[in-house]
């Protein structure tokens, strides 16, 4: 029978492995990489890079200066709408009316233009129309305590109906050198609309993360009870976020008129789907309380790049909504792992 080995201090320490036994360290770093919630948050930027590499390999013009410029310009409207959508979603709501409000704003713009109003007035009227639609919806959600989904679904219908009523269903051609410059020129290689969209995103970021209002938006979305208990008015927050979303839809309307060269009472439904998709891709929680601006902006770029790349590859237009839908559901799947 062997006696247990004497424990002497000079005996090499065998049992506790100094590397394995150290808490954290390597396993911790590994855990960060395999942490799915991290991937969920970075879905849009990572997806953007993968998409750029894949499309570039398949078609070398994808990342050419000309095509990148074109993609950024094409993304500007979606970026603006997605930023507005982000505020609504951050409070746990959703703005289903963004595209219809934009259409309505564009129609108001065209009507004023046809009546001979100067361009700045047309722009202001489009912004005011968007703000008004948003404000009314916000008041109904906030004061009337009706679910966001239902109110903005109604708003979608009302705004697109009004656009048809006001325009009598006919498009108005808008030929303006200023709008033409806005949509086709820029500073160096960067288009004016891109700069505008970027400025909107920057302002929104400051608003969300560096003002009391932004904190209250996240608090109202994260825990309505807690926000209320500290004296934050949910009604005011809801009113404000839908007003912001409406105002940005009005801005998008101006960009749309500039891009198309006309104001049309079109449905523009793909803008609604894509704005929600960009927000989801951007890692914003649909439950509210967690949001970034950079995420949805990256999401909007990703969706625009996807559409552009598929077009470059000669894939039929009819497949594009299918691809967008698949990407969005995949992104939503990743958010399940968000913590």
């Amino acid at each position, binding site marked *: 029978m062997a006696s247990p080995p004497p424990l002497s201090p000079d005996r090499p320490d065998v049992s506790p492995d100094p590397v394995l036994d150290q808490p954290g360290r390597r396993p911790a770093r590994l855990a960060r990489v395999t942490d799915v919630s991290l991937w969920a948050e970075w879905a849009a930027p990572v997806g953007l890079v993968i998409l750029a590499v894949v499309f570039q390999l398949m078609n070398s013009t994808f990342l050419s200066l000309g095509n990148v410029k074109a993609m950024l310009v094409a993304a500007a409207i979606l970026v603006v709408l997605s930023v507005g959508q982000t505020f609504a979603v951050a409070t746990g709501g959703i703005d289903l009316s963004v595209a219809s409000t934009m259409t309505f704003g564009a129609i108001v713009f065209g009507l004023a233009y046809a009546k001979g109003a100067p361009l700045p007035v047309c722009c202001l009227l489009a912004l005011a129309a968007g703000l008004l639609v948003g404000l009314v919806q916000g008041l109904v959600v906030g004061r009337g305590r009706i679910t966001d989904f239902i109110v903005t679904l109604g708003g979608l219908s009302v705004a697109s109906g009004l656009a048809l009523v006001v325009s009598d269903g006919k498009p108005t051609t808008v030929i303006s050198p200023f709008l033409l410059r806005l949509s086709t020129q820029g500073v160096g290689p960067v288009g004016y609309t891109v700069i505008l969209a970027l400025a909107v995103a920057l302002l929104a970021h*400051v608003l969300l*993360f*560096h*003002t*009391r209002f932004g*904190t*209250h938006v*996240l*608090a109202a979305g*994260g*825990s309505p*009870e*807690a*926000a*209320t*208990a*500290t*004296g*934050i*008015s949910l009604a005011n927050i809801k009113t404000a976020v839908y007003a912001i979303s409406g105002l940005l839809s009005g801005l998008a309307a101006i960009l749309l008129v500039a891009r198309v060269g006309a104001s049309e009472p079109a449905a523009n439904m793909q803008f609604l789907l894509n704005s929600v998709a960009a927000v989801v891709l951007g890692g914003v*929680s649909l439950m509210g*309380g*967690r949001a970034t601006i950079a995420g949805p902006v990256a999401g909007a770029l990703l969706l625009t790049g996807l559409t552009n790349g598929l077009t470059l590859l000669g894939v039929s237009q009819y497949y594009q909504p299918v691809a967008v839908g698949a990407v969005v559901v995949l992104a939503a799947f990743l958010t399940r792992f968000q*913590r």
Partner: protein
Amino acid sequence: MTRTQPDADRPVLVEARGVSLAFGSVKALTDVDLSLRAGEITAIVGDNGAGKSTFVRCLSGIHRPDAGVMTLDGADIDFRSPEDAREAGIETVHQNLALVEDLTVWQNLFLNREIVRGLGPASLLNRRAMQRQAREMVASLAVNVPAVTSRVRRLSGGQRQAVAICRAAGFSSRLVIMDEPTAALGVQETARVEALIRRLRDDGRAVLLVSHNFEQVMRLSDAVWVMRSGRCVAGRRTAQTTGQEIVALVTGAQAA
């Protein structure tokens, strides 16, 4: 009808007379009379559903009583929102905590009391000042919260409780209401919170404590009110009563 008024030499800070509140057919509060004094810990005890939290929510501006009067320092109060109550110097640690899990500790501490730089709509958050002050607030309470920049979601139940109490104690409040502050806490954390509650009283503030722990109530409080099915049925000076009497009052075995 005269209830055994817990008399003391200190001035009454809050008084409720005939406060009633119904949620549809549920009479959560019926004709509640009670008072509490500055520099004292006043406890409310009662079985589940007795109406304690509902009364607390009336005082912190979440509910408005259907009937009755409440006074603060002799003046009538009519809070239309929690903001009104906070303005008046009433801070509350709610039973369900009322923290935003996705925000950080410091953001929660300063929620709706943010420090800003600049004027009017152009003012920006002074994050650094809030983080520094948050660190001081947490340190002064000697609570072990990991870091004020961590999200509340990552904190344990006890740490969350500490943050909620920290917030209530931190601003220049005259009345701190705590609805079952130690219900989820371990032995050590409970002791810390109790020490904190005493400290608030010694500061000269009024503390309203809702608790199911009769030993804790006997240990801490200066006065006790007993609620039973929406009514405030008795009041005692803690020094002049016993745990058994309180239990008997709560269960209804002894009439007031």
